[in-house]
């Protein structure tokens, strides 16, 4: 990716002369004097109303028991958080979340890095590859997930047809509790590895050339160069990509909801999906809110740990 400065067009000299030199109004003078306050104010006020107030309301609800549409919220203190510990679906949700996110994030990171290293050279058609790699993560998640649902059908889906045509047995994919998570991980890896690839590729392009030349003079082979030079240099970018990816991955909804709705049974129901079910199928506002707060805390904790690792990597 070219640096930002290059994308900024040259200023048009003519622009200046068209500006009228009228006497500024009182409002305009006020806005000029308090620019640092006036300019961000509308956005900050809007964010306060659309982001902060709902979060505060959500936190308030965690201390209440309330079925939406029936009576009023009743204060029950930490009752909802105590209930979490005796709820088997919470434990299941955490397990599914760790299984799904752990597997998908590590595969996406590893494959994304390797593919980026592969494409890290000047070649004809690099623009085409870039355009193709944008498709999986820019395309509407629900639409793409539905196509995957069709492709993964155990009886007539094209995936099993392809497996069988090369002599492999077909899989039950998302229809069996045993294979549902790996199958969903496959779809997630398909969708997001290209994004990691493009991020890492941008990072690789900005690496210094000197260490590589020195290594080549010393006679290092491709693997040694990758292991001892590329990997340490690109590590901060990888962690940043992981943090970014984890924000969406830990809260994956569209794809899982569209393909399995948490099934078969509850075998692919992440904690996030369960919090949605409690809130919008059972209409238990208080307990649902408590679950949502737990999801937020998991995302926060993961990112704080990763940020610490990233800062340490940058210090080295």
């Amino acid at each position, binding site marked *: 990716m070219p640096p930002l400065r290059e994308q900024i067009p040259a200023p048009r000299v003519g622009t200046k002369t068209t500006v009228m030199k009228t006497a500024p109004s009182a409002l305009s003078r006020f806005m000029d004097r308090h620019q640092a306050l006036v300019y961000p104010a509308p956005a900050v006020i809007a964010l306060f109303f659309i982001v902060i107030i709902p979060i505060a309301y959500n936190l308030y609800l965690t201390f209440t028991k309330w079925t939406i549409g029936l009576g009023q919220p009743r204060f029950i203190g930490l009752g909802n958080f105590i209930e979490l510990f005796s709820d088997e679906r919470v434990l299941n949700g955490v397990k599914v979340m760790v299984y799904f996110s752990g597997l998908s994030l590590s595969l996406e990171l590893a494959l994304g890095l390797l593919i980026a290293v592969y494409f890290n050279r000047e070649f004809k058609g690099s623009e085409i590859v870039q355009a193709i790699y944008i498709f999986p993560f820019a395309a509407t998640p629900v639409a793409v997930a539905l196509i995957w649902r069709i492709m993964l059908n155990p009886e007539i889906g094209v995936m099993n047809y392809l497996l069988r045509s090369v002599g492999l047995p077909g899989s039950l994919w998302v229809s069996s509790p045993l294979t549902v998570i790996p199958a969903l991980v496959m779809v997630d890896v398909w969708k997001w590895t290209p994004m990691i690839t*493009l991020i890492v590729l941008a990072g690789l392009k900005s690496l210094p050339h000197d260490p590589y030349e020195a290594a080549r003079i010393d006679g290092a082979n491709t693997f040694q160069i990758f292991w001892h030079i590329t990997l340490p240099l690109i590590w901060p970018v990888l962690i940043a990509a992981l943090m970014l990816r984890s924000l969406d991955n830990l809260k994956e909804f569209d794809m899982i909801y569209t393909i399995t709705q948490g099934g078969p049974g509850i075998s692919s129901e992440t904690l996030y999906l369960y919090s949605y079910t409690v809130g919008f199928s059972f209409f238990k506002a208080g307990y649902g809110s408590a679950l949502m707060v737990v999801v937020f805390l998991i995302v926060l904790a993961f990112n704080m740990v990763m940020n610490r690792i990233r800062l340490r990597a940058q210090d080295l």
Partner: protein
Amino acid sequence: MTKTIKSTFFYAGAIVLCVPPVFVFVWMILTGLKTGVQNISYPPEFIFVPTLENFRAVFQQHNFLRYLMNSLIVAGLATGVSLVLGLPAAYSIAKYRQGKIGILILVARMTPFVSYLLPWYIIFRHLKLIDTYTALTITHLIITLPMVIWLMVSFFEGMPEELEDAAMIDGCSRLQSFLRIVLPLVRNGIATSAILSFIFSWNQFLFSLILSGPKTKTVPVAVYNFISYGKIDWAGIGAAATLIVLPVSVFAFFVRRTIVQGLTMGALKD
């Protein structure tokens, strides 16, 4: 000679690595071009006489034009409001180093969408605003406004300050110089954030699933409904999915150079 062989191997590998994204894209279009019977035949047909019947049915039986319009209106409103509020804010953050607003944006990004959805559902239900463009636009702003601000900050930071100073000397007010000098300078950034904001709103499913209704149903919810009533209409899904994904893919192609930067929302900065 060895160079040619090496390059042949490289391109062979590159093609293999491009198969997964291309295959799903092609399969989506093929599903839309097959009849219902062809779609459930085994082995799957790769070569067949294509039909546009599904696309006709999607528009005539499912009123898909209405849903496309709804998505267009909501994504347009969310993008417009995000730019009007976000551009001055991002400019100010970049110019006066107001990093603290960044924390607000980070909180907005980390909080699970359902945490917003539940309160907003309760509030909109109370105000009788379920199934209105207002409700959908407000919730989509939760995603698009922080994104526009974050993205534009890095564009404003990359802008040479001297130009603006020159405009000030010329007798412009700060507002005039912002509107006539600064904004035209970052028009690439504005285009990128507008397109990304539009794509994210267009793709949004969760908020629309709960807050839209018969009048304001957006395309992701509409295509999802193909599976929720009785039997699955695979051919219809293929056609509808193609119609939904195509505009997004075209848009994404235009901003491919800056799309990674946009989607990472500055993750690689500093």
